[in-house]
């Protein structure tokens, strides 16, 4: 049992719309100057709590927008403060994982429980990073309600990353392993 982590695009972002004509800077110097100007515009916008600023000159149009909602969302997380001993990094930019795992398969926990890399404290781990695994091979145990639940690999491939330390609690859907399905032994 395993699930793929859907690759999601970033939720918040401040779109800066530049028309194609703007990119028509010929020299590197010009481009740098233009960049600076845009940054200045953005600063201007922010300093003044604006949401939108548009400038057009001789065929060049610059429009800068600052979405209020975005600020709200990200700020909210830091402000509420009560995240405490968060078990999983819900608030980390989803992109990080998505980028790391481009083309990789994520094995997630199907249940809430405690993660164990080996069948017993004295035994060797089921797998190590770099190991090649077969579909159906046991990768770890998640203990819940005193029951040991073996978690199997969904695919053939190479373990590129083990994401959780042994004996740590895991929540539903938490990523446990990254597997590269294209790797061959």
């Amino acid at each position: 049992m395993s699930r793929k982590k859907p690759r999601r695009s970033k939720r918040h972002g401040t779109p800066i719309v530049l028309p194609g004509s703007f990119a028509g800077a010929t020299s590197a110097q010009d481009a740098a100057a233009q960049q600076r100007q845009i940054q200045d515009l953005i600063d201007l916008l922010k300093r003044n709590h604006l949401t939108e600023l548009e400038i057009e000159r001789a065929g060049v149009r610059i429009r800068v927008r600052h979405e209020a909602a975005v600020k709200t969302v990200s700020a909210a997380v830091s402000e509420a403060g009560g995240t405490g001993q968060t078990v999983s990094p819900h608030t980390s930019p989803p992109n990080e994982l998505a980028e790391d795992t481009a083309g990789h398969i994520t094995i997630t926990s199907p249940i809430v429980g405690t993660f164990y890399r080996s069948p017993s404290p004295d035994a060797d781990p089921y797998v190590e990073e770099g190991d090649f695994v077969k579909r159906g091979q046991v990768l770890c145990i998640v203990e819940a309600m005193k029951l040991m639940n073996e978690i199997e690999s969904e695919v053939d491939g190479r373990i590129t990353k083990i994401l959780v330390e042994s004996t740590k609690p895991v929540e539903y859907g938490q990523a446990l392993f990254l597997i590269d399905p294209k790797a061959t032994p």
Partner: protein
Amino acid sequence: MFKKVLVANRGEIALRVIRACKELGIKTVAIHSEADAAGMHVRAADERICVGPAESALSYRNIPNVLSAAEITGADAIHPGYGFLSENAHFAEVCESIGVKFIGPTSENIALMGDKAKAREIVARRGLPVTPGSPGELKSEQEAREAAAKIGYPVIIKAAAGGGGRGMRVVNSTDEVARAFQAAQAEAKSTFGNDSVYLERYFLEPRHIEVQIAADSRGHVVYLGERDCSIQRRHQKLVEETPSPAVDEKLRREIGRVAVEAVKAVHYRNLGTVEFLLDKDHNFFFMEMNTRIQVEHPITEMVTGIDLIKEQITLANGQPLSFRQPDIRLTGHSLECRINAEDPEKFTPSPGVISRYCAPGGFGVRVDSAMESNAVVVPYYDSMIAKVITHGRDRLEAMARMRRALDEFVIEGIKTTIPLHKRILNDPDFQKGHVSTTYLERFLAS
């Protein structure tokens, strides 16, 4: 006292429980489905655990995952809120068996009172008034017909495991029994996994009056006044108030005494609500008992000054009741309007992003909600997104405050039932307190 409470719920009631825990100095663990990762209750808690996908059967009602969440976070108690696992005797039992305190009654209490037919029997056996009906479960259509003939039509067939208006059928004559019996049984089976049904007299324009009770482990039981929840749509309460315009001091004491006796009969612990029908001649009949906190508990808090969630927690911790019957004084009048994310005319759900949210404030206005600007109303759960509660020196002031609060309440981006509540508050029948459980149906048709 408990060190850490896991709140096995979502939305406003999860936030309500977390607030009570914070005030008691208890750490909290929020559980959430994948759909609720950004929920306010999740942010408000000290810790958070995802327990499954959006579907509640796989997350909020997933007993192994919920208990594992308690285990791995070291929570020593679980508050179930309302709905989900709150009236699941098996869940309460497993909690007990693994040493995690279930904040609520004992699993036996839940099992006993959860079977509505059995509960009626127990209460009737103590000589207390019960709606006339079948003595227990109906085994066949024939039994149903016989019972109905004895008490007189119309009657209503109900699921023994029922609640929320599911598994109910009104029967006006002997011809209709067979079909209603089968339909109620089928719906009971599919909704509650139990096809046991019973039957009782169907009152034409009754009031729904319920009594809040509290019981500690030393056998003290008190009642905290009544709530009038007659304004319902398809057995879903919309507006509640206390005191009831139909209950005077004498009747309050009588119903209170009956409620206390009923819960004493099953050695009940913690908070609970005893529901009665009140007919036009002020006769009242035991209907059923809810073995959990109710959605509408805040109006009782407003008139008594007692924090019912804190009381649940301290009682579950084995402490005695923080008050005796003579300490309970009902001051003023309180109303609650449940705001649902629904079309106010067609009642179709209206999930989505709340683009702007600005709750009413000021004297005598309380809002229990887990919403805010940019919050998302997900389509998987109950549509209730806020409760507006007002308190006033008398009913007139509580109503004026409610009208003012509803006018102030800004929720943009989705549809809500606020316009319906405004209409109800402006209705002369409501203003005079002339309501019954059929009020809303007539009001909507007019």
